[in-house]
C-alpha cells in the first residue's frame, strides 16, 4: 500500500500526455477496453483450462460412465440408460450404505451442533482460560484423521483398549465396539462428533461476537437480567441464521466421511458401517465396477449439491439480516 501510493502523484502528469497522443489515433476507451480484455483472458486462461479439464470434463465423464456400459480398459461404450442406477438401487450394499450414511449424519449433526453451541456459550461466558479451551477443542478438526483413527482403534480395542478397561472398572458391560453391528455406526458417529465439534464451536463463537451488546442492555432494561433469560431472549434468537449455516456445513462434512471407515471398519461387519464415499471408492477402484461406482457418485453429488445450495441460501439470508 505505502509503496504504490506515491506513484499516483508522481506519474499522473506524464501519463496524461501519453494518453493524449494515443487518443489521436484510437479512441482511448476502446483501445483501453481491448487491452483490458486481452489481459483478462490471458490471466484467466490457465485457470479456465484447468477448471475445464479437472472439473467440468470429469463431471461430464462421471455422467457418461454412469449412463453407459463403459468398463476399465474398454475402448468403446454404448449408452444403457438407467441400467446402472437400477442395479445400484436394487443392491442391498448400496441401500445399506445410503441408510448408514443418513443415520450417521443424523447422529453427527445434532451432536456436533449442540456440543459446539454449548461449548461456545460456556467459553464466551467468561475470560478465564478462554484461549486454552478454544485451542483444545479445535485440535481434532485439523489433526490427520487417519492417524487419529488409529489411536481410536487402540482406545476401542476389545481387550487392551482404554474404553473397555474403564467400563469394566466401573462394572459396566464391555463390547467389541468396531466389530459389533449394533455399536459400530454410533461409535463412528461419536468419532465424527469428536472431529467436528471444534469447527461448530468457532463458527458459533464468531456468531456470538456479532451480536450487538445493546441488545443485552435492552434485554436488561426489559427485566431479562438472569443469564437464562438473556440466553432465551437474545442469544439463541440472534444465533438462528448462524445455526442454519453450521448445521449444513457440518452435515456436508459428515456426508464426506471416508478416512475413519477406511481405517477402522472397511464398511464392516457386513454392510453395517458402509458409507457412500467408501462405497464409491471400493466399487470404483477395488471391484473396478466403474458404472456402479459412477452411479453412486452421482447420488452422492446430488445430495452434496442440494445441501450446498441450501447453505448458499442460508448465507444470503444472513447477509440480508445484517
Amino acid at each position, binding site marked *: *500500500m505505502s509503496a504504490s*501510493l506515491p*506513484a*499516483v502523484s508522481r*506519474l499522473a502528469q506524464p501519463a496524461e500526455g501519453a494518453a493524449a497522443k494515443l487518443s489521436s489515433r484510437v479512441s482511448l476507451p476502446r483501445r483501453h477496453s481491448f487491452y483490458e*480484455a486481452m489481459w*483478462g*483472458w490471458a*490471466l*484467466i486462461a*490457465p*485457470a479456465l483450462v*484447468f*477448471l475445464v*479439464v*479437472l*472439473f*467440468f*470434463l470429469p*463431471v461430464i*465423464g462421471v455422467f457418461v460412465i454412469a449412463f453407459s456400459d463403459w468398463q476399465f480398459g474398454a475402448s468403446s461404450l454404448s449408452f444403457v440408460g438407467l441400467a446402472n442406477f437400477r442395479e445400484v438401487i436394487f443392491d442391498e450394499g448400496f441401500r445399506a450404505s445410503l441408510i448408514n450414511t443418513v443415520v450417521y449424519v443424523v447422529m453427527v449433526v445434532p451432536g456436533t451442533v449442540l456440543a459446539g453451541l454449548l*461449548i461456545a*456459550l*460456556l*467459553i*464466551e*461466558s*467468561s475470560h478465564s*482460560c478462554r484461549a486454552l479451551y478454544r*485451542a483444545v*477443542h*479445535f*485440535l*481434532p*478438526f*485439523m*489433526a*490427520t484423521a*487417519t*492417524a*487419529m483413527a*488409529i489411536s481410536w482403534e487402540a*482406545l476401542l480395542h476389545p481387550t*487392551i483398549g482404554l474404553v473397555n478397561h474403564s467400563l469394566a472398572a466401573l462394572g459396566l458391560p464391555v463390547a467389541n465396539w468396531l466389530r459389533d453391528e449394533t455399536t459400530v455406526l454410533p461409535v463412528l458417529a461419536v468419532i465424527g462428533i469428536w472431529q467436528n465439534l*471444534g469447527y461448530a464451536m468457532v*463458527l458459533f*463463537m464468531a456468531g456470538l461476537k456479532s451480536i450487538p451488546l445493546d441488545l443485552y442492555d435492552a434485554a436488561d432494561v426489559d427485566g431479562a437480567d438472569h443469564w437464562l433469560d438473556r440466553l432465551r431472549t437474545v442469544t439463541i434468537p440472534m444465533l438462528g441464521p448462524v445455526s442454519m449455516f453450521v448445521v449444513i456445513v457440518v452435515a456436508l462434512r459428515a456426508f*464426506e466421511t*471416508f*478416512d475413519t471407515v477406511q*481405517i477402522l471398519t472397511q464398511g464392516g461387519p457386513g454392510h453395517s458401517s458402509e458409507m457412500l464415499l467408501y462405497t*464409491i*471408492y471400493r466399487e470404483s*477402484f477395488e471391484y473396478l465396477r*466403474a458404472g456402479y*461406482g459412477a452411479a453412486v457418485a452421482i447420488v452422492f*453429488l446430488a445430495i*452434496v449439491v442440494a445441501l*450446498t*445450495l441450501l447453505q448458499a441460501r442460508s448465507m444470503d439470508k444472513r447477509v440480508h439480516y445484517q
Partner: protein
Amino acid sequence: MSAIRLSPAAAILRHGVLVLTSAFILVPFVWMVSLSLKSPGEIFRATFSVLPAQFYGVDNYAKAITSVPLPGYMGNGLLVCALILAAQILVCAPAAYALAKLKFWGRDFIFAMVLVGLLLPHQVLSLPLFILCYKLGILNTYLALVIPYVVSPFGIFLFRQFFRKIPDDIVHAARLDGLTELAIVWKIMVPMALPAVIAFSIFSVVAHWNDLFWPLIAVRDGHLMPAPLGIMAFKNEEAGNDYGPLMAASTLVVAPLLIAFLAAQKWFVEGMTGGSVK
C-alpha cells in the same frame, strides 16, 4: 456475552463442564502419545497408566523412523503440499485479479463456472480423474498427486473477494507507473491480500497433508506415499499389533500441524473455516 460476570458457582460449573469436554477431546491424543512410549509387554498388560512404567519411547520412535520409511512419507507429503500450494497460487491469483478488476467478454460466465466448481466435491470426480491420469501416463507419480488440485475454485473465489476490496485507484496508479497487469497481480494485489493468501495456504496444506482418499487411488508405490497413506500401509503390514511404533508414527504425522496450529491459532481458525470467521 462478554459483559457477564459469573457467580462463583457458575464459574465452577463452567470450568467443570469444559474440563470434561476437553478431556474427551484430548483422550485420543494422550492415548496415542502414551502408547508410543510403552513397550509391547506393557501395552498388552491388563492394568494401564498414562505414563509408561518403563520408557520405551526411543525404541518405538526409532522403529517408526527406520523400519518404516516414515521420513520418506512425510517428505512426500511436504513436497506434494508445497507443489499443490505453489500451483494453486500461481493459477488462482491472476484469475482472481482478472475476475475482480478487469472487464472482458465472458467474465461473468467464467465466474459462474468457478461457483459451480465450488459445488463439486473432488471425490465425485475421482473416477474420470483416475482415467485422465492413466491416459497421461502419470499414475503412480508425484504428478498424479498434484495435478487434480492445481486449480482451486475456492482459492479463486477467496482471492477475488479480497482483490475487490482493493481500491481501483491503486490499480490505475500502478498502470501509470508502467506495471503490466501480471506485475500488478504479484507486486500489488497478492502482497495487499496477504491475509487471504495465508488463510488459503493453511486451508490447502491442512487439506492435502491429511488427505487419504486421492493418494489411495493415485499411487501404489511405497516410496511415493504421503503420510496418511503411509501410516495406513504400515498399519496393514503390522496387522495392527505393533502398537508402539504405529502410535509413534501417528504422533509424528499429527505433530507438525498441531504445533503450527498452537503457534498461529488465529490464522488456522480463519483458514480452516474458509474466511467465514473473522
